[in-house]
């Protein structure tokens, strides 16, 4: 006897409802097609930023060749910045109306051509012309990219995505020394020619990017049912430019964030220019040390953008609905006293530490603020909204060094900092008051607008289909129907359940490929809570792949998956275990070189913080499998096949899973051993754990399962209650699918 007969009573404390679920920060990987556009758009941003400052590192070389005066060099820099500002607004308008991937592709290609033209300059006029035209192309990426990112990536990951994108700006700064070294070694012309080359590469790659449908992530966020590739018209697609800006500025939280950014820029726009001078004047550093110290501070900024995005998304997900604005506002507020302390202390290392933390909080505000700005703007207005913000910030940043200089001339540089640093706090206060007050309403208004447009779109389709004789009903307001409801708008492999019963696991249109080989094709599944459900199908049809997707070992290229209301997309497997999903893989799903005890300990991973709880649960599991209790110190690999499956099942049981995924329990086992293990599986299901059992043996599946799913060539269908199924008929169906 492998297992104890009276298991039900003994394993009661292992029931999912009695199992404490640890609170933790759900993090998400960017999955599917998601990563590549973000990497590419960040690279485009990096290249553009590196170019903005390339010219100044070429000044000595240009002066030597053309005998330019400092005024002429100043004109080159100034004209470029004016061109960038002039180009930003039209590109924002273009981004809202035309294919954004094409805008970036053509804009970046034109940028590369202009770089080559500039490298061929034979005199000041040609150089000036080149720089001005270059400035016009430069803003092709920022408003366009932010609009694209909002449609590429889920709403609940928007801050994180904006944080990664913002890294492009910081990495662009780090590329600057490369330009200087190339100029010294090969001359300024070669530098311009070589800097043009990556532009052509990213332009080509941008051309190949898919153009996402505007607002599709808002539709997905609200789980609106429709053909997602359909372009849904909105009134903003056809309004004049001036009217569009009026609409944008009427959005209270957007306008507040715009003012906040402008006020903040008046402070931090001059930091890069004046801080080296401050370090020289007040800390007796030489110029090389001061410049190096400033680059150390930039590292603080890098940490800021990477952490703030995640934090804002986490808080948003935890129920703090305005967390994006809140994180940005608090970060700005915290940065102010840190900067004040930094510019008051006399001890240089302490000053640099304070400066780094100040920069961390200052920059940390950018990703969540960018995400919030996108949240409150209609998908058809985001390009213009982002460009307006960029222009405002540029103008304020340009004025900032002048204001510093004026105050420093009138008093001294430290006073200038003391006067201007509070502007960071003012920027934070604006966010925490005006923006925070309006954000939720504005964000919901955008969601509502998308929902209405969607409903109108569906109503139009309904009318069209009714004219064509199709009387299929569509859901009110376009909301995705309850997949368990009788009148669900689409066929779905769900087990019929009471209308108020939410499925424990809900999968929609899941596609998965191993490289070029697609294995899962639009899998839909509504797995009811409780009971044992079998997934049958012949070898190689995708059963294990589906389980691995649910367990988080594999990530689908497209589709949705919800565990209760938790969106599982991107959540790594160890966090799914904490949520209550445990996967028992096929074969000997244990670590052969470890002892039985250590194997069971692995299953207690979600309770790693509570040793007493782990111990208690291990004892409970050993009550279920007394045979294992006598072999706790034995290497698991030396156990018999049945005992190894017991170890695997015990390891799964320790976690007290709500959903237990079992792959091929009977594989390679004697029928008597299988029968005993199945008894345990039934007992586990009896405790309230929902079990999804993958089986090739129809007899085993029907003997233990309440309901049966059938998989064939990567497509899933629900066969219904096991009791109503005929084993021979099912076997016949399996054989048919084999042909």
């Amino acid at each position, binding site marked *: 006897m492998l297992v104890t007969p009276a298991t039900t009573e003994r394993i009661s404390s292992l029931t999912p409802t009695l199992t404490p679920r640890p609170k933790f920060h759900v993090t998400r990987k960017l999955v599917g097609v*998601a990563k590549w556009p973000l990497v590419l758009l960040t690279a485009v941003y990096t290249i553009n930023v590196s170019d903005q400052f390339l010219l100044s590192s070429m000044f000595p070389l240009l002066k030597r060749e053309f005998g330019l005066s400092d005024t002429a060099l100043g004109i080159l820099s100034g004209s470029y910045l004016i061109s960038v500002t002039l180009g930003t607004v039209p590109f924002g308008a273009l981004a809202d109306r035309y*294919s954004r991937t094409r805008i970036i592709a053509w804009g970046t290609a034109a940028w*590369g051509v202009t770089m*080559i033209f500039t490298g061929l300059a034979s005199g000041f006029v040609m150089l000036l012309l080149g720089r001005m035209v270059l400035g016009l192309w430069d803003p092709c990426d920022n408003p366009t990219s932010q609009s694209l990112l909002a449609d590429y990536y889920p*709403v609940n990951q928007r801050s994180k995505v904006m944080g990664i994108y913002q890294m492009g700006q910081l990495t662009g700064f780090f590329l600057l020394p490369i330009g200087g070294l190339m100029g010294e070694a090969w001359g300024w012309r070669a530098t311009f020619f070589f800097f043009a080359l990556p532009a052509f*590469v990213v332009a080509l790659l941008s051309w190949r990017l898919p153009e996402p449908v505007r607002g599709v992530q808002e539709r*997905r966020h609200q*789980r609106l049912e429709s053909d997602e590739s359909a372009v849904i018209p909105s009134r903003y697609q056809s309004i004049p430019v001036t009217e569009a800006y009026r609409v944008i500025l009427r959005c209270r939280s957007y306008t507040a964030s715009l003012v906040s950014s402008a006020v903040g820029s008046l402070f931090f726009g001059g930091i890069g220019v004046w801080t*080296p001078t401050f370090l020289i004047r007040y800390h007796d550093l030489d110029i090389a040390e001061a410049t190096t110290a400033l680059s150390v501070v930039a590292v603080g900024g890098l940490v800021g953008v990477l952490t703030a995005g995640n934090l804002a998304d986490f808080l948003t997900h935890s129920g703090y609905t305005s967390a994006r604005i809140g994180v940005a506002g608090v970060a700005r507020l915290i940065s102010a006293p840190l900067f004040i302390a930094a510019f008051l202390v006399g001890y240089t290392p302490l000053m640099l530490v304070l400066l780094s933390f100040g920069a961390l909080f200052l920059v940390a505000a950018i990703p969540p603020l960018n995400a919030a700005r996108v949240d409150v703007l209609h998908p058809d207005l985001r390009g213009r909204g982002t460009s307006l913000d960029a222009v405002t910030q540029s103008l304020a940043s340009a004025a900032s060094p002048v204001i510093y200089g004026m105050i420093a001339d009138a008093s001294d540089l430290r006073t200038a900092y003391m006067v201007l640093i509070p502007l960071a706090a003012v920027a934070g206060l604006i966010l925490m008051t005006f923006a925070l007050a309006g954000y939720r309403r504005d964000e919901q208004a955008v969601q509502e607008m998308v929902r209405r447009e969607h409903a109108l779109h569906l109503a139009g389709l309904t009318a069209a289909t009714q004219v064509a004789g199709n009387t299929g009903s569509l859901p009110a307001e376009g909301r995705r129907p309850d997949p368990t409801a009788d009148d669900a708008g689409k066929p779905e492999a769900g087990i019929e359940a009471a209308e108020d019963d939410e499925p424990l696991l809900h999968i929609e249109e899941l596609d998965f490929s191993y490289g070029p080989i697609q294995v899962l094709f639009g899998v839909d599944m509504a797995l009811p809570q409780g009971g044992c459900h079998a997934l049958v199908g012949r070898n190689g049809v995708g059963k294990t792949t589906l389980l691995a997707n649910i367990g988080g070992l594999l990530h689908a290229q497209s589709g949705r998956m919800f565990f209760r209301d938790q969106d599982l997309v991107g959540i790594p497997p160890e966090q799914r275990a904490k949520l209550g999903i445990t996967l028992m893989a096929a074969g000997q799903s244990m670590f052969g070189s470890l002892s039985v005890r250590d194997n069971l300990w692995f299953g207690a991973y979600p309770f790693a913080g509570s040793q007493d709880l782990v111990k208690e649960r291990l004892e409970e599991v050993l009550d279920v499998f007394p045979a294992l209790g006598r072999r706790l110190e034995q290497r698991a690999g030396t156990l018999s096949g049945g005992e190894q499956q017991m170890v695997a099942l015990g390891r799964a049981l320790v976690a007290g899973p709500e959903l237990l995924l079992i792959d091929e329990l009977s594989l390679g086992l004697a029928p008597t051993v299988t029968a005993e293990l199945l008894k345990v599986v039934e007992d586990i299901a009896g405790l309230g754990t929902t079990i999804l059992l993958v089986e090739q043996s129809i007899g085993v599946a029907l003997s233990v399962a309440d309901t049966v799913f059938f998989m064939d060539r990567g497509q899933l269908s629900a066969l219904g209650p096991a009791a109503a199924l005929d084993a021979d008929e099912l076997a016949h169906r399996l054989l048919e699918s084999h042909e």
Partner: protein
Amino acid sequence: MNSPGPASGPPVERGAADTLQPVAPTPSPPDLLEASARLAARLLGPWWNYRTRRLLFGAVITAGFVVGLVLGLIQVYDRPVLDVGEPRVRVEGLTATVQVTVRNTSEDVAYCPAVGVAALDRDGLDLAKAPAFVDLGDARLAPKASANFVGVLAGISQQDFDEQLSEYSAFVEQENPCP
């Protein structure tokens, strides 16, 4: 914001990836953008389709990359005939004496160059600039010959010297082949 979110892989906008035409099917009131797009479409007529746009883009990318690479490599190998060495600086008070070696790499042409030295701030702008002269002999640089040029930089303010001065630079203002 805390309701279940969406998944990966946004769908592709039908037709939008292939075109620079407006993605919105609804008619727009005339504005500058629309008018420009219509005018361009009218002028270019049937030639302006997806295929021609793709061809044009491919041509721009290919030509741009090849031209940029070739021109860059030419610049790498096409070095100035007069090679200016690293400047050596002696500072006394606010006055800097900058010495630099200039080498004529030409096989057969002699040069009589005009050489300058400068003190630069951290933006690369001049704080002071002066001509440099050969310290010994004449300024004629025979093929494969070298000469030391010396320039004196004065007039930098104490504040600029402390806060702005980043580096010293030497450069050939004019190559001037000798008659």
